[in-house]
């Protein structure tokens, strides 16, 4: 039984090996690495854009449910009356974007305007190359630089966003670009610092190794996810916050703040270029979530080392956790208003950054005191060390606003 599940788990790997064996016969030697790479990449290019497509529908439906309505439910399989609960919506949207006229403003810098969406999508896709989607399933394992590669490539999206905003030569686009750059630059640091805690504990930048380091088992059943430590728990939420800001998600969606600056940096984009922005934004979010899962949520590991959980294929665990995080972001989007620029920056520099630094210290202590203090004591201690600064920093924010009492005239 367990073997069957293990086979199911490793199905993609065996499939690839089988394909490679098949092709080895009649392909020249030098093409084999290329083919191997292509075979690894194709699933990424198939699964995640499809996931994006489904997410747009799920998001719209989910927001609908949050808002007491049904959401898209009439558009199903093309040219039929099969409604499929509205899950064909993205096909219609895709066709529509493809056939839409492409308008480039006369005043725009046409080359940059054209390049921006492409330059945004490529690095976002490249970040997927280091994410371990399952056991033995990492397209490109960079043992020395995995995490660094992710951040290095991921950071270039800022440039693309700026390219889009600047090249449009539209005032709203420019405002959006300014906001995007300031925001993404500010949240880059908490993002990196919060993930550094994990690096510190595991001592590696390889994402595969990080996942594997969480495979050790506590109490005989509980996997040693980093989430289950105080620094991991706090680090995860710090990471998520910064990731939301990096991916321009509510409440940090200032660069495209509809109610203020129309559509922000992609105001002047139409047709499929606009769709690419959407795609890249969501793929960026998925990649961020994927990284968060890898770092804190045990990657493709099940939470507990008990039979029915371990039977589920590893990549399902990964995709499942990813979906859960996406749902969280949709939920947030349905609830929260947006921050203001100065508050956003203040939050990054005055709250997230100190917290990540403290978290780093706590993680260091956690490791250094591992042999001296038992887990039962280390946990509350670590947690207290984080809760107190959280409370203090939070209070400095809350000092600016209070719930008010109102007087009444009769």
């Amino acid at each position, binding site marked *: 039984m367990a073997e069957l599940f293990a086979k199911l788990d490793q199905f993609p790997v065996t499939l690839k090996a089988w394909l490679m064996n098949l092709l080895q016969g009649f392909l020249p030697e030098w093409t084999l690495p290329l083919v191997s790479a292509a075979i690894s990449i194709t699933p990424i290019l198939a699964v995640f854009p499809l996931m994006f497509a489904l997410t747009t529908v799920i998001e719209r439906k989910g927001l609908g449910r949050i808002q007491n309505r049904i959401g898209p439910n009439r558009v199903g399989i093309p040219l039929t009356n099969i409604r499929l609960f509205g899950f064909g919506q993205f096909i219609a949207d895709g066709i529509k974007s493809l056939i839409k006229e492409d308008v480039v403003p006369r005043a725009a810098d046409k080359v940059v305007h054209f390049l921006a969406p492409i330059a945004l999508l490529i690095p976002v896709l490249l970040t997927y190359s280091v994410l371990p989607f399952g056991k033995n399933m990492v397209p490109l394992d960079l043992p020395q630089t995995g995490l660094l590669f992710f951040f290095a490539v991921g950071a270039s999206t800022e440039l693309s966003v700026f390219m889009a905003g600047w090249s449009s030569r539209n005032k709203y686009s420019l405002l959006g670009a300014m906001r995007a750059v300031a925001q993404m630059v500010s949240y880059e640091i908490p993002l990196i610092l919060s993930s550094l805690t994990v690096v510190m504990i595991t001592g590696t930048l390889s994402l595969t190794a990080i996942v594997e380091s969480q495979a050790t088992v506590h109490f005989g059943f509980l996997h040693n996810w980093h989430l289950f430590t105080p620094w991991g728990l706090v680090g995860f939420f710090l990471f998520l916050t910064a990731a939301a800001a990096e991916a321009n998600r509510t409440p940090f969606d200032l660069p495209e703040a509809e109610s203020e600056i129309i559509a922000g940096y992609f105001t002047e984009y139409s047709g499929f270029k606009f769709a690419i922005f959407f795609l890249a934004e969501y793929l960026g979010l998925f990649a961020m979530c994927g990284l968060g899962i890898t770092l804190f949520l045990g990657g493709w590991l099940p939470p507990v080392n008990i039979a029915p959980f371990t039977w589920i294929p590893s990549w399902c665990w990964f995709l499942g956790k990813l979906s859960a995080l996406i749902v969280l972001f949709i939920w947030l989007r349905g609830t929260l*208003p*947006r*921050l203001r620029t100065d508050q956003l920056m203040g939050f990054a520099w005055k709250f997230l950054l100190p917290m990540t630094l403290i978290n780093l210290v706590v993680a260091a202590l956690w490791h250094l005191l591992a042999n001296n203090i038992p887990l039962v004591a280390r946990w509350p201690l670590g947690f207290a060390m984080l809760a107190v600064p959280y409370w203090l920093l939070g209070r400095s924010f809350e000092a600016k606003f209070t719930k008010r009492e*109102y007087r009444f*005239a009769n």
Partner: protein
Amino acid sequence: MDGTQFMTFHDLAYDAGKTDFQRKAEVIGVGREGELLEVAMGPQHPSTHGVFRMDVVLDGETVVKLKPVFGYLHRNHEKIAENTSYLGSMPYTDRLDYFCSLTNNWAYALAVEKLAGLQVPERAEYIRLITAELTRVLNHTCLAGFLLQDMGALGTPLMYAFREREKILDLFESLTGARMMCNYMRFGGCRCDLPAGWLAEARKVVAEYPKFLDEFDALLSGNEILMARTQGVGKLSAELAINAGITGPMLRASGVDYDLRKVDNYGIYSRYPFRVPLGDHGDVYDRYMIRMLEMRESLKILEPALKDIPEGPVVDPKAKLRGFRPKPGEAYGRIETPKGELGFYLISDGSPNPYRYRVRPPSLINLTILEDMCLGQTVADAVITLGSVDIVLGEVDR
């Protein structure tokens, strides 16, 4: 209150030929022309609440100059009213502030009743009070939704607000026949009596409304982002508010106790004890909270009023529907609509059409100090400050 504040304004206006906000703008923007961004926000903008335009000059994100531009919805209401009968203008008043057609109706009916000396039967007074308070609740609910929408909450508060709005609109529709453009009040009463079962339905809606308010409070009133976004933003001092003729919740958020329901005692408001919430800071948060509190007070009026309503005729039998010609003279009638003081100034020359028909629009006048409130703040603040003023363009431009 002394006049010093206004003298400075006066001095600036006369002596330097500049208003103080112009001067302030110049101080901020001096010598930085290359960095300033002139943006037209509107007429098509998601959060100008219609076809309103703000010509903004930005230094980075900071507003250094803001000029409101009106007239994109100037529908010549006053001119049309001067060419039509007194009754014919009634449906047009619906379209002034299209959220609050019933209070508009009331204000107009009140002005005409003053002009012609008509009496309103008891039952009609009750119906007017009930519909007006329902309108107030409706308007404030929607405003809160829109304000949050401006703040970037993706539709959810607005959807909840509109969910409740539909309940009240159902009441309006079963009473008046239309969802928005009720055209219900008549000179000397109301057009028709309450349909069977209406009161029970209304009581149900009123009884369930606090549940929604609690939900809304839980969803947002204590939300840190909301508080951070709104507190200290778009501040308005009481002195300036009075001098600029600000009325309604916006004035009370600045701490001035002036509610026409108490001051003028029109209708039968004096029979119901309700409180007027007052703010101390005059910022966006106060304006939002004052409206939330006013809704609860309105419910306190509605509950007993729906019980007390007497039987009787709903319209003064002497009132004429057609061929209504008031004696020459003039009258100014005003009521407290959800947005502030809505007044109608009518001059009659004895003909079937009013000689002069003037609407005193609260929204327009509440916009007078928009620039003062927005200067030095960010675009995002300007947007929510505008949102907190609660304008409806149909009334601003008429």
